[in-house]
């Protein structure tokens, strides 16, 4: 990252609004913070309009706090609830249209590699379940087939939440939602397994109910994407608004689904990624 981006031009310090001064003094750039540091630093996400109890907002905050190198991360998002939060995120991010986020990320990653050869420039896709598994599935999968060095993170609230709660491919069988008045007729897509078969070197399914696990998965996914191949992370982020449960029950819902067996933590690591992670996590590699 150009450090100048977080350096106020001399003389203008006293006129910068507080939130920017906080970002300069307590931001996470080049500090190697993680989620255990939450509360001690200025988070990348400013005030946002997402609902009380939003599982997606919680997941997004945790993901952003887990980025290994926020100072050299560019995010590609897609239409959905998350794109209402992204204008307030303090790393460069691109709003693709809807479904083409992995195509946009492919072009972006190759351009950054070309302009900054040998430097870390993590391109991370963060999009909802509709964008990733339905409208974007072919472009998502082709970015995996092409072995693009990008991380794909799905914020799975099992519906098209931002448009009023319609059924998505990731909704579970039988769920009654808008456009599925008599219940969904086909099962939830098994995207982690599809990702593994499509060539992702690291795949995980996590949830904000276990923040440390989520953090580890984010870091692994991004580090593996740097060197080995595409990676996929599915984050179960329930939506109180469209599933009509009290906002304070979001995390409890995740735990309930885990108990019922309809949500599972997963991790698939390809052999090449295993080697890399072993090296990194044993501290032998930067």
């Amino acid at each position, binding site marked *: *990252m*150009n450090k*100048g*981006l*977080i350096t106020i031009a001399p003389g203008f310090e006293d006129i910068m609004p507080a939130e920017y001064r906080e*970002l300069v003094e307590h931001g996470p750039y080049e500090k190697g913070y993680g989620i255990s540091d939450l509360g001690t630093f200025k988070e990348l996400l*400013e005030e946002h*309009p997402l609902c009380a109890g939003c599982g997606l907002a919680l997941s997004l905050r945790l993901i952003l706090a887990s980025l290994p190198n926020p*100072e*050299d*991360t*560019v995010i*590609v*998002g897609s239409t959905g609830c998350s*794109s*209402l939060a*992204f*204008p*307030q*995120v*303090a*790393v*460069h*991010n*691109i*709003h*693709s*249209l809807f479904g*083409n986020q992995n*195509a*946009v*990320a*492919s*072009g*972006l*990653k*190759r*351009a*950054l*590699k*070309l*302009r*900054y050869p040998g430097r870390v*420039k993590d391109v991370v896709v963060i999009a909802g379940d509709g964008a990733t598994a339905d409208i974007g599935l*072919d*472009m998502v999968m*082709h970015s995996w087939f*092409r072995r693009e060095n990008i991380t794909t993170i799905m914020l799975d609230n099992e519906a098209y939440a931002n448009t009023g709660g319609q059924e998505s491919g990731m909704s579970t069988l039988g769920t009654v939602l808008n456009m599925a008045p008599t219940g969904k007729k086909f099962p939830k897509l098994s995207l982690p397994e599809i990702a593994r078969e499509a060539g992702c070197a690291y795949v995980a399914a996590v949830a904000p109910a276990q923040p440390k696990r989520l953090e580890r998965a984010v870091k692994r996914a991004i580090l593996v994407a740097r060197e080995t191949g595409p990676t996929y992370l599915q984050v179960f982020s329930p939506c109180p608004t469209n599933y009509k449960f009290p906002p304070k029950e979001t995390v409890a819902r995740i735990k309930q689904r885990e108990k019922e067996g309809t949500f599972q933590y997963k991790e698939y690591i390809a052999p090449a990624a295993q080697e890399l992670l072993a090296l990194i996590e044993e501290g032998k590699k930067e």
Partner: protein
Amino acid sequence: MIEQKVVTPDHLLFQAGREEHFITGSEAVKEAIKRANVDMAISYPITPQSESMHLVGDIYAEGYLKEYYRGENEFAVMSAVAGASMGGVRIFTATGGPGTYRAFEMFPTWAGARLPIVCAFMTRGVNSPLSIQPDTIEMAALLDTGIMMFHAENGQDLYDMILKAFVIAEKTDVHIPAGVFADGFFVTHTRDKVAMPQANIKLPPYDPHSAPVPTMDMETVPLRQMRDPFVMKSNFISYAAHASWQQEIMAAAERARKHVDKYLGGLVEAENEEAEILIVASGTAVSQSRDAIKIARQEGIDVGLIKIKSIRPFPVKEIRSLTQKAKALIVPEFNRVGWLSREIKSSLDDTTKVVGGPRVFGGMTMPPEMILAEIRRCSA
């Protein structure tokens, strides 16, 4: 990478000595990209632009471009092109006909996002029914997307317009996409004389710092930047912001006029414009018109020609002043809707002198005799 000397656009386009080569339109695309200092190109097959992008791939393998790959569909390709452009590189792609329509959502997106992408459109018929043959109907659909549109008459135009499109598109006060249109097969697959300087020179590289919007690379201010956010929330004033943004995109095309004048030598080219009968055309319809005019002159009929090179921005002032004295404006087109005739009519106060035709489409050729028949009718 191939060794090439960076020269100024003026040198490459106007001063460097040129040699004539007898090449196809597809090869002209290749030759333009060779000298355009393009960083990246992304391709997808569709007739009749596949050959152009094969050749761009070949010169990538030779070292004229730094990155190239084939995408999975036109919408994906145009999306990846947008991502790359936001990342600060000079990028090229091409499509045509159904491919244009497949990618369509990306064209107003490119324009609104101020991306100086150059895309070649080798126009052809769109379904239903299917035809791979030449037809310019897709240009009608693109008129209001916000992209600039330059229409090539032949291989020479195609070569020059691609290079000039990069120069014009990347101007800070313009910085919107440019489509360079050539009629499929008529231009792409026929050989013609194209004069070009040697391939050991190239345009200066793209400078992302001169862009009117920040590059997405974590090296450019401001840090908290999304391209482009929803501009609609919070209160009615944000709707004004969206409106103002759209107006700015239209303004960008207006600002391109003086650059088009400089680099394309004018938005139009006029010959014998004092004549009472004028043919106003663009693309290969101009070539057919030239043949018709030659025969008409032999018959003693005085006909002039206005070749429109820039469709967007449209030469409203030029058309108004050049056609003042004319009694008839014949507008031959290779499409059924007559989009060029509509554009011309909306520029004039007196539309009764506009003859909306002849028109051929579906791949039919336009024999000069058709245009000649119209000329004779108008001069009677």
